[in-house]
């Protein structure tokens, strides 16, 4: 079962991303952790495609094609996220996510 290796790797990568999102205070680092989670999803897509292709045959390589889509969308998402971080810095002179609590009760 060769597929177990990439799947385990993806799970670990995702966990690292979750930890980063929940624990880092710097917004840039939070954003990077989100990218780690997306990368884990991409790895999962490729690995799953391999499983499906060997068992049922998948000439269209659906999972790998989707991986490319996710990478593209991830790049766009980083663009939006960094723009928000930049505005946050301009307004507050720091990028701590703890301090950005305007939505508090």
């Amino acid at each position: 079962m060769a597929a177990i290796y990439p799947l385990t790797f993806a799970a670990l990568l995702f966990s690292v991303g979750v930890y980063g999102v929940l624990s880092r205070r710097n917004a840039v680092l939070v954003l990077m952790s989100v990218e780690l989670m997306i990368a884990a999803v991409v790895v999962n897509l490729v690995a799953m495609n391999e499983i499906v292709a060997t068992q049922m045959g998948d000439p269209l390589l659906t999972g790998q094609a989707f991986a490319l889509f996710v990478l593209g969308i991830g790049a766009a998402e980083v663009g939006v996220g960094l723009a928000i971080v930049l505005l946050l810095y301009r307004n507050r002179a720091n990028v701590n996510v703890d301090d950005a609590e305007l939505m508090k009760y």
Partner: protein
Amino acid sequence: MIAELSWLIPAVPAVSAALIFLIGKRLPRHGAEIGITAMAATLVLAIAVAAQVWRANVGVTIDPEGGGGAFLLERAVTLAPLGEDIAVQLGMRVDGLAAMMFVLVALVSLMVHIYSVGYMHGDARYTYYFGLLSLFSFSMLLLVIASDLLVLLVGWELVGVCSFLLIGFWWERKEIQDASMKAFLTTKFGDVGLVVAVVALGGATGSFAIGDILEAVEAGEVSHGLLTFALIAMILGVVGKSAQFPLHTWLPDAMAGPTPVSALIHAATMVTAGGFLVARLYPAFHESAAATGTLAVIGAITLITAGLLALVQSDVKKVLAYSTISQLGYMIAGLAFSYVAGVFHLFTHGFFKALLFLGAGSLIHAAGSNHMEAMGGLRRFMPITFWTFLLGSLALIAVPPFAGFWSKDEVLVSALDAGGYTGILVFALGGVGGLITAFYMTRVLYLVFAGQYRGHGQPHESPASMTFPMIVLAVAAVGIGWVNLPVEAVQARAFSSWVMYDLGYWVEHPVEFHPFLALMATVLALAGVLGAWAIYRTYPERDPMYHLGIVSHVLERRYYLDDLYTDLISRTAVRDLMGPAAAWTNDAVLDGVVAGAGRGAMGLGRRLYRTGDQKGLEGVVNGLGVSALWSAARVRLAQSGNVQLYAGAMFVGVVVLAVAFAVGGN
């Protein structure tokens, strides 16, 4: 097969109406030219179709055993399925009856269009008027051609709407608004019955198509009780539309509209729709003695009461209106006994009554008043109007050989042949009605045309656009009765064969010409003429009709029917009797109950307030509020504004869900 193109007959006026409303105002003749062209085309088509039916029906030798064989053309497109197996069909059913109505409607409508060019000249809403005329012609022809009772109902309501709009054409005056509203609501009251009848017949036979319904009824598939119920309900619609007793009160008020409209709608076409409907479903009516008996009694009452009312009117249009009601009574009563009698009278009456209304319009145009007191001596000023009006009157009085004589005679003969109580009733009242008709028409002739002019200004003959239609209709009034001559030499009973739905009908219903009966009817008519002549010859101004004491009074008050409807029912019964009764009930009974209940409630309330409310409920309510505040203070802490806390909550949630799926999914 020109009859295949019959659908064009209603379609052409429909297009004409649309064109007049859209571009009529910008045309040199303001839309009148479109309407007249369209109606002329319709008339040509109608005559072509009628001729084809004539060739197919008239002169055919009838097999005494088989019967049948009358011309019938049915074409339909299914519009919408209703549920499982009932469908609405937009279709045409062209037979002798429809062909006859095509000719009648198209000819009278064309004449009224031409006449209106002169009569409505200079009116502020000239284009709108012609648009409505075309719209009405379309609606009436749709009603006639419909092969489906639902489509027929659409036409039926459309003519009602057009009638409403045209009666209220000069809507600036309050009484005209009231008249149009009265006409609309009164006929609408009858239409409820028609809708019930249509639904009952459609439900009983599983189809709204007239052909299917008649087949089912003739095959005995509809139970007799249900059929009688449906037909009696339908008679209610007929009574409303054809202004039969006791729903006739709207028609005299409808005279508030322009006179050509009265000629077209309230004399020749729309008011005969009731008779047409009965004729359309005649095989069904034939099955139910109760329905035909009702028709006979209603027709007999109407023809005599309306005839008497015509005696005391001073407004020339109202005389004609009551006369129309009376003649419609003849039609309905005739239909009770014989298909041909009613349909033939409908046909001839359409021509000569339209002529009389157009003549009245010409008189009103000249004298500037509806009232016969303001006329007199007009024979010298208006020769064409005089002669055409005289011919129309002779046809209405039923002097041989004018049109009305042949058709009214047919009604009386069929009633006498049928016998029984209803037959004798219709025969006797119809004979007396002929005398009355002769009397009131002679009165009109004397008051309007004899003696000295009593109005203002100098009366003058109407323009050619108005006299031409009168001349055309006068020719019809003189000659149209001859299409059904009971003489072997000239195609005997041609009209009857032409409109007949089943040529075998003649085997069972041979209608003979009774020379003695015809002589008697003529003598009665002449007696009426002579009576009126004796009275009005010398002093047309001193009208004895207003000096008959209680009789005049009752007639002038129109049998108190209007008083019954407005004063007794809506005012006395509802306002004066039911109102005070309701007020007394309100004051004495309801107030007592309410007051007692109030006192009891107050005592109970006070007790409740002290114990239940102050101690129980107040505590609960306050407790609820306090607990809401307290829990809100705890819950709001979740809204920390900390993004990472939210992300963590989401993550925990996803994990919980994932676990739940992993465990529960298996």
